[in-house]
């Protein structure tokens, strides 16, 4: 059975990877370049097969951060993968080759945050209409938009 220690040792091999101390989710912050290799390691070697969700956070000046949560259902372990894309960077590696569930999740991240995922089969908006201008969940997207709520 995979334990938290195995995860920590395996992840420590990635340069610049910090692992949080808690283990209800094992929070792993990693460099954007190792995003896909980390996913591959987690899924193939450590058995984190369950892909729960993927999303992004806009930290205003500090740039965007991509977040993903994967689970090992047998060992009841969860990992929260985080990577800071750096100021003004809006592209990131895609996990679709590893987790097919990431397909729609990444399309939603692109739709809401404008993050382009290289290696994604067909990256287009999933929730908003194709002619929508702007990415709503960015902090710069002000709340009262030109489309007045119909009242």
């Amino acid at each position, binding site marked *: 059975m995979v334990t938290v220690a195995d995860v920590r040792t395996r992840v420590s091999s990635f340069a610049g990877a910090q692992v949080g101390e808690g283990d209800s989710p094992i929070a792993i912050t990693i460099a954007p370049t190792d995003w896909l290799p980390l996913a591959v390691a987690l899924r193939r070697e450590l058995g984190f097969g*369950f*892909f729960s969700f993927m999303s992004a956070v806009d930290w205003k000046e500090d740039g965007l951060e991509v977040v993903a949560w994967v689970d090992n*259902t047998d060992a009841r372990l969860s990992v929260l993968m985080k990577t800071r894309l750096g100021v003004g960077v809006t592209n990131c590696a895609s996990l679709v080759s590893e987790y097919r569930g990431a397909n*729609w999740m990444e399309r939603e991240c692109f739709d809401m945050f404008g993050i382009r995922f290289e290696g994604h089969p067909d990256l287009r908006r999933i*929730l908003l*209409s194709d002619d929508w201008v702007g990415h709503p969940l960015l902090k710069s997207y002000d709340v009262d938009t030109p489309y007045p709520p119909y009242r």
Partner: protein
Amino acid sequence: MAAEISPRIKTELDYAGAERLTMNMGPQHPSAHGVFRAILTLEGETVVEVDAVIGYLHRCHEKLAETLAYVQYPSIASKTDYVAAMTSEHAYVMAAERIAKIDVPRRADYLRVLVAELQRVASHCLWLGTWCMDMGGALGGGATIFLYCIRERELVLDLFEKLTGARLLYGFHQVGGVRYDVPAGFAADCRQTIDLIEARLLEYEAMLEDNTFFLMRTRGVGVISRELAQEVGISGPLLRASGVDFDLRRDLPYSVYPDFQFKVPVETDGDCLARYTVRMVEFRESISIVRQILDGLPEGPISSRPGVKAVAQVRVPKGETYTRVEGPRGEVGCYLIADGGPRPYRMKWRGASFSNLAVLPFIIPGHSVADVVAIMGSVDPVFGEVDR
């Protein structure tokens, strides 16, 4: 869409032969379970490729969460999964409580589990009804089973109406506890309702269980393999029907679930029939949990914080957490980042139906149009949760 179709199906479909017919199923379609559009590419009756178009019910809950306070948002959170409103509120409220380390009195936790399990019974009633309606037709046997299930679901909604005053979207949970206490005579009504539903379950099974027509339509239809299930992240009854024994209430227990005994059904063949079986067992397990709660409901306050008096009453210190709740459709999660103010900094809502629906383009190719409808019904998506 580079959907990998299993080799067996691939060989059948690759004949050049007849030209393909693209057909639109939805968004205004009787069996679309809400607003969902599937662009089916057909060869004769069999579906070759599916392109799912969602987003018709998108209200941007996550942006709303950044503008509404902790006090206001629970009654909006219930609008994500409007068929199981209680579980959605529970996820949001638990996230705020976990960051701010607010403890919840035992009676409030017991009430939360009581309404969550009653909500699962009502939601499964709606699932069985609409699924049989899809497979059976509005002018046929399907409508009969649909009306039986709706008749039972109304009884549970009457219970919720006595408790909170509303029938579908309640705003029952608040940070620190719940807003309504159990009125007089509620426990008796509750026992009577769940006894009646348990008796009626036998009737549904008599109409469906080893009914040849039903088995013909569901056995071996829409098989989801174990790896595909985990890889796409489907959860709840769908995941357990594909052989993965993972139930959040038992494996990552939250609230007071450790106090109750309940069985977690697991099937292995992953087809529509397995999903039906898993949900029917869950029906009975939820009823037994409700009985356990009614027997052991502790006395005491129902909230550790005063009633809602002002907007900025609840402030959550800096921090982030991801709380997961086992909703009727699967894992409903709320990833919350708080920055100390009365409003969250960022809230990501993990809807169970979003991932459950994401598996369809992988399993539908190779089936006929009638099967697409049966598979959609067995996945039981709710589009408030998909589009958020």
